[in-house]
């Protein structure tokens, strides 16, 4: 029986023995081979590796978007993949914030509404209505702080790439999650814009004390992180 690494007490999220395989026709393709990874509270971790190393698959499993073939994801000590569907969705809503390479904003909503989405998803009609003003003020405040005061009512199509990513960061941080998972957040931006977006993300991470798992190819970006985890062929090396 393989030996399971113990989880450190200051660990926020811990992946243990994550195996992920895909069935392609009659062939089974294993992309993660028993990966262990810990991210401590407030820690800034860079996850690096070549394309196909399994970085994205690992963060999808740890972000509760894709069920592992085997292994556990312990969030605050409990196995998140063992939770019922609704509880797991609620955990994804409140404890984890996602920042994607392609922003993934809803095109029909303006900047403020996009930021408000996690609060809309996490609250009932009456619960949201009771706190609507508080939520809206907060969303506007975050966007103003992120330099988007002139863009509050603009839809994604009316925003630049950097502005979209700032809206996406505000959305990820809106419900004060314990952890942010950022998948190549500057990968679709020019270097100057990417620098500014990264600076914003790191500043917020520092101020809020939120854990950040940053997937990147960029060594310069990774250099800002407290710890760099490298992956190769579905294993942490």
């Amino acid at each position, binding site marked *: 029986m393989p030996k399971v690494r113990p989880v450190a007490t200051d660990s926020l999220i811990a992946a243990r023995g994550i195996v992920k395989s895909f069935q392609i026709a009659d062939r089974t393709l294993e992309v993660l081979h028993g990966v262990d990874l810990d991210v401590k509270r407030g820690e800034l971790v860079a996850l690096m590796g070549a394309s196909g190393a399994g970085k994205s698959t690992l963060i*999808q499993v740890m972000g509760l978007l894709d069920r592992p073939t085997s292994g556990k994801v312990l969030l605050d000590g409990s196995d998140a993949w063992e939770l019922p569907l609704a509880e797991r969705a*609620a955990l*994804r809503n409140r404890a984890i914030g996602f920042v994607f390479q392609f922003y*993934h904003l809803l*095109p029909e909503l303006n900047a403020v509404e996009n930021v408000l989405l*996690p609060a809309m998803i996490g609250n009932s*009609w009456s619960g949201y209505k009771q706190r609507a003003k508080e939520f809206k003020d907060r969303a506007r405040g975050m966007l103003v702080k992120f330099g988007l005061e002139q863009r509050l009512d603009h839809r994604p199509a009316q925003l630049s790439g950097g502005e979209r990513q700032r809206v996406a960061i505000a959305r990820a941080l809106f419900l004060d999650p314990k952890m942010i998972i950022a998948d190549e957040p500057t990968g679709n931006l020019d270097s100057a814009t990417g620098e500014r977006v990264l600076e914003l993300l790191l500043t917020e991470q520092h101020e809020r004390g939120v854990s950040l798992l940053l997937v990147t190819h960029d060594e310069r970006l990774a250099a800002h992180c407290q710890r760099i985890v490298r992956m190769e062929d579905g294993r942490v090396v």
Partner: protein
Amino acid sequence: MYKYFLSWRYMRARRTNLIGVVGIGVGVGALIMILSIMTGFLEETKKSLRGGLSDIILETDQRMFRDGRRVPHSPAPLLEAVRADPRVAGACAQLSWFGMLTQGGSRSAYATEQLADPQKGNLSGVRLFGIDVQDEYQTTELRAALARTPLLGDERVADLDDPFAPPEGYVPDGRPLASCLVGEQLASEWRLRRGSEIWITTALIDAKSGEVHPSDRRFVVAGTFRSGENEMDLQRIYLARAELSDFLGTGREYSQVLVRLKDYERDGTDVQLDFQSTLTQQGLVPRPEFVRTWEDYRRPLLGAIENERVLMAIMLSLVVVVAAFTVFAILSMMVTEKRRDIGILSALGATGPGITGLFVLIGFWDTLLGATGGAILGVLGAVYIDPFERGLSHTIGVEIFNRKVYLFDHIPAIVNPVWVGVIVLGAFVIALLFALVPAWKAGRLHPLDALRYE
């Protein structure tokens, strides 16, 4: 919360949703309007069909009873027995027979000539009704039919209390003729006016020899009536009962007795059953099946109109189904188009059932707007169909609703709120069932597959 917010936003943002909204609106509106008009037609037709018949009809065929007896020659015993029932408001005896109307000659030879060559035209088959005016007024709608404003030239009788009085200005050529009352359409077709003379020809079969004996007589038109029922206004001629009995010369005084009840809806069936037993026992009606309600009498026609209403409802329901299918098609397209959004929502914490709910809600808004708009338009359309039709007919110069054909001076429409509710509810059920399929598929999408979709 997001389900309501996003579904409304998606609904507004995608103009294709309008197709579903309009489709449902048209279906619901048409269904309400047509059913209201059909109900109006049915009720009006019932009224006019009942008008000439009263509530219960006692046919007193002259055939023998099984024991060899015959019904009395005089209607008096039957009328007395019927009127003794406290549930009866009025009763009248009628003598009816068929005849042919001819005009244009002053000799019976002309009628014979016409009969010899029916291809020549100028013949109308008519039903002759011998009536007692005051009894008739108490029992049927004849008084109203005589008083009703005509659609085709005003040839109403001068005195309603004595409709068979010779028309004003009528100067008989020889012996004064007996008066008759002619249906408005028949009068119009034959260009009859008050004071016009008509020949009525009939044929009687000798019960013993089996020979047919033609008989004819001239009458003067005292006025016209408009019952509102085509068959009556085109074929019926009223005469004084004694006059018709004399004309037929068979000794028959009546062929049926009509009965009006104080409350037909409450007592109709009971009175029918009572009369079926008592009147046959008393030898006043030959058989129980000769005691019929007006609905028994008109069942085929009422059934046909009711059938038509049901068929219309079924056909127009298909419009709603087609509209609901449009909602299905639009939502299916939207689910494909919004796959990335579905992935984003999942990543932000939305569950599969929540996403299903989001898309069902889009179908719900489509239906709510369509059904509400359709219901309002349908009700308004039914209520204002008459002025609308008149305006449209005037504008395009074509008479859409021919009042002469239907004999209604307006398009009747009765809006039944229960029906409106059922139609709107039905539209919701159908549209939401159709919306459920793409919505369910959306809820089953894997978040990552959806996120990867570009």
